[in-house]
């Protein structure tokens, strides 16, 4: 079946009224999650995960993915109107978006952000449509050595792209890999670190760890007294940008879309990195770089397009290879697994309804988000008026329900609390918890691939260099490590250290 026929099959699934309803629900929840500072898409997806148990796979994944890309739309609203990033990926939009709002151009900034997000999101889905199926076919050639090499490359790439230093990122990834070894060893049946707790025999789940680190950890680090909400009310009659503003935003949207999609394919916080890089590129290419920070249209259009394209790009390795590029795609993989549908090279051929229905729903979902985010922005802004003192207890309650309902295990809820405390500590010491979750997710596949490779080769490590794909992937690892070492020796400030400064709250 060709791409067009497959896509038509997808639309026949995605345009069913009940699938449309769940896509709408996901987009709506995603927008609200994006608007609210302190609640990320990961918390939103995890909280709603138990609610999808009664649904079929397509509806579940359509709704949960809608939360993810919907949150990228919603994050810009808070950035533009409050100068608080609703999502980490909207940090760069705060700078010029809020400056535009102060000039009375809040409506135009919101419109440019929404249209840019829609164009970039749709571009990302078109690329996903074209790239994922052939990539999945190619990945069918992968055996254990190739998977082991690919996962090592993922970890090294994550460390290289990370804003924090290489050892810090790899430390977090190792911590996650260690957590991933808890439970019964699939190859020998040994219990590892389960301390006679029956629930630990199955290992530590992704959901309690992710919700603890990102949901609860964020709340513990944010005392309510420090959350001050001052919202600039958008003038909806000024929602349409001027012709000059459209002209200024056209190329940044195009560049942001391409840049964001490419970065989205790589592991790590791609949606955050892409918006930072897009901002840097636009400032460098601008004829008036002095306008950046004072309300430059390109400073809103570029980063907002980039983060949306990146969130769509992240679905390519997830769907085609079964590999998560971050904690959010990891939870989406968990959602697919719960429904008995393993993501990866076989997904396209064995579950075409799920794959193409999901892809088609993203075309529809992006249109829905455009319709939701512009006329209803006034309603979403009201969500920001809920005092934080009432908001975070709600989030904690949903965290408990979300974790408990996955497997009705109170041990999981305790793990969430412990992870929340660890997440609080990690933030204090400047660690990014994302590699920890990634390490936890890939641990079983990585260990299995590594051990199977060694068994296949009768203990000969050369197997990783004798197979061309594995050797090429390990060659890429070596190149990235050499690049990282080079920048360490030169002690130059590259884009990663600048990103770290911005994330720490310094000026770009």
């Amino acid at each position, binding site marked *: 079946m060709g791409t067009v026929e497959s896509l038509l099959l997808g639309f026949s699934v995605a345009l069913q009224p009940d699938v449309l309803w769940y896509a709408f629900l996901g987009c709506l929840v995603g927008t609200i999650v994006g608007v609210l500072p302190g609640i990320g898409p990961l918390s939103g997806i995890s909280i709603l995960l*138990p*609610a999808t*148990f*009664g649904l079929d796979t397509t509806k579940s994944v359509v709704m949960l993915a809608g939360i993810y890309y919907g949150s990228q739309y919603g994050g810009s609203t808070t950035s533009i109107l409050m100068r608080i990033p609703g999502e980490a990926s909207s940090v760069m939009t705060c700078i010029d978006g809020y400056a535009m709002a102060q000039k009375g151009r809040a409506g135009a900034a919101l419109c440019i952000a929404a249209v840019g997000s829609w164009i970039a999101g749709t571009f990302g889905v078109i690329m996903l449509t074209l790239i994922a199926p052939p990539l999945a076919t190619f990945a069918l050639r992968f055996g254990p050595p190739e998977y082991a090499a690919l996962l090592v490359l993922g970890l090294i790439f994550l460390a290289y792209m990370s804003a924090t*230093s290489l*050892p*810090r990122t*790899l*430390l977090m990834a*190792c*911590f996650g890999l*260690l957590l991933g*070894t808890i439970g019964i*060893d699939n*190859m*020998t049946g*040994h219990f*590892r*670190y389960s301390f006679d707790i029956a629930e630990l025999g199955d290992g530590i789940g992704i959901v309690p760890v992710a919700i603890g680190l990102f949901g609860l950890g964020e*709340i*513990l*680090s*944010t*005392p*309510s*007294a*420090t959350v001050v909400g001052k919202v600039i009310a958008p003038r909806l009659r000024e929602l349409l940008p001027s012709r000059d503003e459209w002209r200024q935003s056209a190329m940044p949207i195009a560049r942001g879309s391409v840049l964001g999609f490419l970065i989205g394919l790589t592991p790590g916080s791609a949606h955050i990195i892409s918006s930072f890089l897009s901002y840097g590129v636009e400032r460098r290419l601008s004829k008036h770089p002095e306008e950046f920070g004072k309300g430059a249209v390109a400073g809103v259009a570029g980063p907002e397009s980039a983060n949306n394209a990146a969130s769509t790009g992240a679905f390519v390795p997830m769907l085609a290879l079964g590999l998560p590029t971050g904690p959010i795609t990891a939870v989406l993989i968990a959602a697919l697994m719960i429904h008995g549908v393993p993501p990866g090279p076989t997904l396209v051929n064995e579950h075409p309804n799920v794959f193409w229905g999901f892809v088609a729903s993203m075309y529809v979902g992006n249109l829905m988000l455009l319709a939701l985010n512009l006329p209803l922005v006034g309603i979403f802004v009201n969500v920001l008026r809920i005092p934080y*003192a*009432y908001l*975070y*207890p*709600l989030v*904690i*309650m*949903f965290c*408990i*329900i979300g974790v*408990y*309902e996955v497997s*009705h295990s*109170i041990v999981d*809820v*305790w793990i969430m*609390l412990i992870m*929340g*405390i660890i997440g*609080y500590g990690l933030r*204090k*010491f*400047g*660690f990014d918890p994302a590699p920890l979750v990634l390490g936890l997710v890939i*641990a079983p596949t990585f*260990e299995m691939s*590594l*051990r199977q490779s*060694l*068994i296949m080769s*009768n*203990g*000969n490590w050369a197997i990783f260099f004798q197979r061309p794909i594995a050797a090429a992937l390990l060659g890429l690892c070596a190149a990235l490590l050499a690049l990282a070492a080079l920048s360490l020796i030169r002690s130059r400030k590259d884009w990663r250290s600048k990103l770290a400064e911005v994330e720490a709250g310094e000026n770009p």
Partner: protein
Amino acid sequence: MTLRRDHIAGAIFVAFGLLVFALSGDLPVGTLSFPGAGMMPKLVASFLILFGLLLILRANESAPVATVAWGDLPHAARVVAITAAAIALYQTLGFLVTTALLLFGLTFGTERRHPLVAAAFSIGVVALTYLLFAVALKTPLERGILGFQ
């Protein structure tokens, strides 16, 4: 010598790596041609110790430990204590009672809101959440031994 953030962090990870080795005594490493259950944890723990030591060696690039702000710790401790109590009671008292107490504890106990407002908020939210999950989404919530959901 100034004690820095990465001295502490690196030392914690080195200690954790050593703890993993101590707990892995009975896990067989196996051979290269048939790796055992202990191979992966010990390999990763070795890397953890290595990167921890690297962090300590490069600690001069990090901020002094005295500059780490702990002003939010009392608030965080109160939130953790109330959440821990709720988790401990969840399977006994069930969803309705436990989450109402959790919300009241956080809004009144931690945030010092008016008790009547906090009570109304807690009961209202729990009722709405119950309707959302148990009625609209058909997701059964924990009943507890008292029989309340």
